[in-house]
């Protein structure tokens, strides 16, 4: 009897110790992401005002010149693993709308133009705008909204402009290929008047033998017709491209500076898109990727704190 009791107590005792150990977070927590800080949920007091200017895309550059610039200080993304970025310190954004379309003009310094991602260690420049998907009136420590690409039940809408997509808008066939990065990929000394003829099968097999193309990924497709990807996320690692792409953009690089315009109709029929109504206010956040530094995914320069975004009424 005593022996049985002793055995039982040893069994339950060890189970209890194991439970305490399990619940202590040593084994449960991934331990790589930083805890949410108070500051993350306190938006800055200053923000961007999207002016009403009655002009269209052709007049966008001039209109953006009239709009007030708003500068965001960027920092290394060190909240979520894998960390990185921080090479771009500042980004300047302006905004206006014409009652139908909203425009954001974005400028940042980048000494190198990286608009291709074909070789193994080649990464592109990019910029992202993030908005809470649903209308959010207040963000505070009491009413948190994660600036880390949203959270469960708190989705965000992300507009991601990519330098390589921008370039591909203007190339033949709407996409850059292996042979653009490696012109001599088939022959080092090209005596052949029609090298592609001898690699016909290689070329023709692409739609069949490319997982990315058959899976319908926008990254792999030609003729996307846009340089901005319309995405949603509910936290890090959940970024998902939308079925219905609505955001457009244009960008150019000169004298160590990217100048990008991103625009979209104020309202779309897609329920995964953020809705903008003149007179409303919401929040936004930004990130910049610097290709030469190997920036991609979480390796980016970010603004962290939410910035207020006011949209002027139509005058």
């Amino acid at each position, binding site marked *: 009897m005593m022996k049985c009791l002793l055995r039982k107590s040893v069994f339950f005792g060890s189970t209890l110790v194991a439970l305490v150990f399990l619940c202590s977070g040593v*084994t*449960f927590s*991934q*331990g*790589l992401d930083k805890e949410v800080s108070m500051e993350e949920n306190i938006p800055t007091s200053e923000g961007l005002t999207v002016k009403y200017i009655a002009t269209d895309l052709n007049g966008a550059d001039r209109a953006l010149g009239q709009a007030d610039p708003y500068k965001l200080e960027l920092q290394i993304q060190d909240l979520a*693993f*894998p*960390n*990185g970025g921080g090479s771009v310190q500042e980004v300047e954004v302006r905004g206006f709308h014409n009652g139908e379309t909203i425009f954001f003009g974005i400028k940042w310094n980048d000494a190198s133009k990286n608009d291709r*991602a*074909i*070789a*193994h*260690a*080649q990464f592109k420049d990019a910029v992202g705008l993030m908005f809470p998907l649903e209308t959010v009136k207040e963000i505070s420590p009491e009413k948190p909204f994660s600036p880390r690409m949203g959270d469960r039940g708190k989705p965000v809408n992300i507009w991601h402009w990519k330098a390589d997509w921008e370039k591909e808008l203007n190339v033949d066939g709407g996409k850059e*290929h*292996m042979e653009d*990065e490696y012109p001599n*990929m088939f022959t080092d000394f090209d005596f052949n008047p029609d090298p592609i003829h001898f690699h016909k*099968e*290689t*070329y023709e*097999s*692409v739609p*069949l*033998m*490319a*997982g*990315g*193309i*058959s*899976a*319908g*990924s926008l*990254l*792999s497709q030609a003729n996307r017709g846009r340089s901005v990807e319309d995405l949603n996320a509910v936290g*890090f*690692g*959940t*970024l998902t491209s939308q079925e219905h792409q609505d955001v457009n953009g244009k960008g150019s690089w000169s004298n160590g500076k990217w100048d990008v315009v991103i625009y979209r109709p104020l309202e779309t029929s897609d329920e995964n898109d953020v809705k903008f109504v003149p007179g409303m206010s919401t929040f936004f956040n930004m990130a910049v990727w610097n290709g030469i530094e190997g920036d*991609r*995914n*979480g*390796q980016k320069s970010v603004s962290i704190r939410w910035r207020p975004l006011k949209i002027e009424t139509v005058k």
Partner: protein
Amino acid sequence: MTLVHNWHLGRTMEYPYFESRPEHQFAAVFNINRCIACQTCTMAHKSTWTYSKGQEYMWWNNVETKPYGGYPQHWDHKILQLLWDNGNNPMEWYTSAKDKDETKAPYGLYNGDTIFELARTKGLNQVAVGYIPDDKEWRFPNIYEDTAASEKTNYETGPAAESSELPEHKRWFFYLQRICNHCTYPACLAACPRKAIYKRKEDGIVLIDQKRCRGYRKCVEQCPYKKSMYRGETRMSEKCIACYPRVEGKDPVTKGRRMEARCMAACVGKIRLNGLLTGDYRKPDPKNPMDWLIHIHKVALPLYPQFGTEPNIYYIPPRWAPRSYLRQMFGPGVDEALDKYASPSRTLLAVLQLFRTTQTMLSRFEIEDGEKIFESEVMGKKVEVYNDTVIGFASDGTEMVRVKVEEPTWESDEKRMITY
């Protein structure tokens, strides 16, 4: 990070996800001793999966000449150097009897850091130590083919015969056959920040979801075996898929039974046996040829177990290569494995006959005793050969193959010789 058990290392180790072993694990045994580097496996792979644009440089299966060769060039030297960490991580093993355990620690206890642990210890910005090979490194898949290593020059070593005597040749090389290891703890899977890589519960095959992949190249960076590759044409990464339609039995040839991968089935040197391991490493099935070779007889060893990913392609090490080099490559199980291979047991001789006799994956074998046909002495050990019959069965119990240890020969009668 969580704690998971890695039986190659004989201990628990850190990994970003919980231990979740598949019901069966895709695995293979490669007998290095038999390989002639004909590259038929390489071409079988190439003509099946990577003949398209952007895949020109991709060799999901490759055979390289060790010690100098490597695809991508110097992949293992570089990873070992990273793992060595200027001598702070000497990658030692404890191999005394008390450090070993029949199922949980068959090779002993690894006392160093794995690629995951070192990245954590050093506070690196990645889950596992690694690097992205540049274009040059991918360029020569068979560089240093047949280049032998020697401590001395040809002149110094004297006649070749003297420098090539077992147990260790002084001048040596061997072929290393490499595919994706479909690791139990894949570093590529751990590295992917958006969980685009998954390990299938039914057969342990590791795949990249081409819908989720966004071409971040974290898997390329952190797979220590460098078997995740970036395809510039589609802007995303691809890897060996273990010919999963064949493994699932979708190929009509095997009538719905599981079928060996293309590179395995194409092997003319009969060095490869492909099959499924029992998911629970603590309960190996002594009648499953894979389980028997790997878990029970321990004649086949993992490639660079110290990386900590628990790779699932196992190698019978080459008999002639320096033991220190082999121990670095296959862990401390090398001496035992080589002893067993040099003077093979009756069962081992029989199981070795199963290699490349059928395309169907064998999940059970039986041996019927035969008479003694040969006796010899190898390295001071008695070797007896019996003409046993080994029978291989598919998972549905169908007999797929029946072979004898002694290869049957047939002599044509004299009349026939005259006619010709």
